[in-house]
C-alpha cells in the first residue's frame, strides 16, 4: 500500500516550515527583545535576570546621548531621504528618455546596490582620507578648497560624508521604483497635453508629478524608515564619531548592548525604535491601502 497525501494535507505541509520559521526567527526575537527591555541582564550571571519594570526605558529617556542620537538621526534621515528622492526622480526622468544606449546606463546605475556596505565604508575612508585622500586632492587642484578638509574627524563633515555614502548607495532604489512607474504612464496623456499646447514644464507638473505622487510617497516612507534605522553605514564609516556626533538610535542601542554591556538598555532602545517603525508602517499602509483586496498586488 502506498502512502498518499491528500491535496489539502500537501497545502498544510508546505505551510509548516514557514510557521515554524516565523515563530523562531521573527516572533521569538521580538518577544525576547521586549522581555529583555524589562530586565537587568548581567553577562557574567546570565541566569539572574531581575525584573526592573521601566528602569531601562527611564535610563534611555534620561540619557542625553539618546536624545542627541535621536536629533542626529533626524538630520541624517531627513537630508539623506530628500537628496535620494530629488536625485532619484531626476535620474529616473533622464533614464526614461528614448535614447540609444540608455539601457547600459540603467544597468550601471544599479551597481551601488550590490556593493557591500563594508566595502563602501572602506572606500569612503580612503577617498575622504584627510592627508592623502583623492577627494581632497581633486578639490585642492580644482581650487574649490584652499586647505585639506578633515572629512571624517570634524562633526559636520563626518555627518556629511556619511550622508553622501547613504545617498550614493541607495539612490538607485528610488531610480528603479520611479522608472518602473514612469513606464506605466499612458503616453496618450502627454499627446493630449501637447495638442493643448502644454510645454515640457507644464506637462511635468500637470501629468508626471501627479502620476508619480503615490509611488513617491511609498518610496519616501520606505527610505525614511530604513535610513532612520541604518547601523552599518554609519558605524563602519565613523564609529559614530568624532565623539558621538554621528550617533543614531541604532548605534546607541548597539553601544549600550555591546560596549557598555547593558543588554536591557540596548533592548529598550530597540523597542523604542520598533514603536517608531510601527508608526511609520501604519503611515505606509494608510498611504497605499496596502493589503486591500482590490489592489494587494
Amino acid at each position, binding site marked *: 500500500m502506498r502512502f498518499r497525501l491528500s491535496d489539502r494535507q500537501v497545502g498544510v505541509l508546505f505551510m509548516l516550515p514557514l510557521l515554524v520559521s*516565523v515563530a523562531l526567527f*521573527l516572533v521569538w526575537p521580538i518577544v525576547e527583545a521586549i522581555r529583555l527591555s524589562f530586565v537587568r541582564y548581567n553577562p557574567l550571571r546570565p541566569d539572574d535576570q531581575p525584573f526592573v519594570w521601566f528602569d531601562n526605558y527611564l535610563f534611555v529617556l534620561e540619557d542625553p546621548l539618546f536624545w542627541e542620537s535621536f536629533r542626529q538621526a533626524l538630520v541624517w534621515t531627513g537630508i539623506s531621504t530628500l537628496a535620494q528622492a530629488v536625485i532619484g526622480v531626476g535620474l529616473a526622468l533622464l533614464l526614461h528618455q528614448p535614447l540609444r544606449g540608455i539601457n547600459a546606463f540603467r544597468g*550601471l546605475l544599479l551597481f551601488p*546596490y550590490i556593493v557591500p556596505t563594508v566595502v563602501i565604508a572602506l572606500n569612503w575612508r580612503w577617498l575622504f582620507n584627510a592627508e592623502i585622500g583623492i577627494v581632497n586632492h581633486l578639490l585642492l587642484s580644482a581650487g574649490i578648497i584652499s586647505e585639506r578638509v578633515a572629512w571624517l574627524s570634524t562633526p559636520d563633515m563626518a555627518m556629511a560624508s556619511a550622508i553622501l555614502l547613504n545617498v550614493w548607495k541607495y539612490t538607485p532604489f528610488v531610480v528603479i521604483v520611479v522608472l518602473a512607474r514612469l513606464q506605466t504612464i499612458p503616453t496618450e496623456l502627454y499627446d493630449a497635453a501637447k495638442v493643448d499646447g502644454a510645454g515640457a514644464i507644464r506637462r511635468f507638473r500637470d501629468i508626471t508629478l501627479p502620476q508619480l505622487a503615490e509611488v513617491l510617497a511609498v518610496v519616501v516612507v520606505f527610505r525614511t524608515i*530604513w535610513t532612520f534605522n541604518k547601523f552599518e553605514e554609519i558605524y563602519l564609516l565613523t564609529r559614530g564619531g568624532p565623539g558621538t556626533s554621528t550617533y543614531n538610535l541604532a548605534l546607541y542601542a548597539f553601544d549600550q548592548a555591546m560596549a557598555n554591556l547593558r543588554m536591557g538598555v540596548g533592548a529598550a532602545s*530597540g523597542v523604542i525604535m520598533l514603536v517608531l517603525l510601527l508608526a511609520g508602517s501604519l503611515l505606509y499602509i494608510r498611504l497605499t491601502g496596502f493589503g486591500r483586496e482590490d489592489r494587494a498586488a
Partner: protein
Amino acid sequence: MSRWAAALIYAVLGAVTFVVCFPLLWAISTSLKPKDEIFRWPPTLIPETITFESYRELLFGGAVASAPGAGVPPSAYFMDWFVNSVIVSVGSTAISITVATLAAYSLTRFRFRGQRAVPYVAILGYMIPSVIFVFPMFLTMVALDLPDTLLSLILGYVCITLPFCLWLMWAFFRGVPIEIEEAALVDGATRLQVFRQIVLPVALPGIIAASIFSLIVSWNDYLFGRVFMNSMDKLPLTVGVMHFFDGTHVDWGLMMASSVLMTLPMAILFGFMQRHLVAGFGAGAVKG
C-alpha cells in the same frame, strides 16, 4: 528631442556614472600600486608601477604564515573568511528560499484562516532593522551553546532574508496562472507531482531573483557577524576585513584589494543575472 537636449542628457548621465563608478575604480587603482606609491602626494590616478602584491598577500598569505598563534597577520585569514562568507550566505539563502517557495505556493493555491496576515508579516519583518534581532538571537545562540559557529550565523541571517524572500515568492506565485496545474490535477496527477514537474520550472526565474537578493543581503551583513562570531578563523569577510584597521598603520593597498575581492562575486552574479534583478526590483523586492 533636439540633438542638444540629447547631448545634455548623455553628459549628465555620464557624469553620474562616473561618480557611481569612481570609488571602485579608485579602489582598483590603489590595490595595484606598490606601498610607496599609495602614500605619494599628489596621488597618481593610474598606477605608475603595477604590482599584485596585495592580492597575493590576501589569496596566498594563509599558506605563508602557517605558524599558529601570535604574530599571524589578519590578512592570513582572508581565504578562511571568504569560504565562511560563501557557506553562510548559501546556507541561509537555501533555508529562506525553500521555506518561502513552499509557503508562497501553498498560500496562493489553498485557502487558510489568517492567510491575509502573511503579507503584513513579511513587510513588517522586512522593515525591522537587524539591530533589533541581533541581541535576542545572540542570547538564544548562547543558550543553545552555538555562538561562534557558522550555523549560528546561518540561522541569524534567516531573520533578515526570510521576510523578503517570502514577499517576493508570494508576489511571484500570484502571477503564475493556475490553469495548467488544474488541468494536470484533473488528469490524475498528484499535488506533489504537479509541484515538482510544472510549478518549480515555471517558478525558477522568481527563485533565482529572490536567491540573488538573499545572497547579496547575507554576503553584505556586518552586524550579525560582529556580534555572533569571535574566533579569527570563523569570521565572515565583512567582519574580518575590519581587522585590517587593528594595527598602528593602515595598509590601504591591502584594504582596497579586499574591497575588490569582496565585490567581485556579487558583481559577477549581478552581471549574469541583471535581467532577473530588474524583474525583482520591479516586484518591490529590495532590502536596504
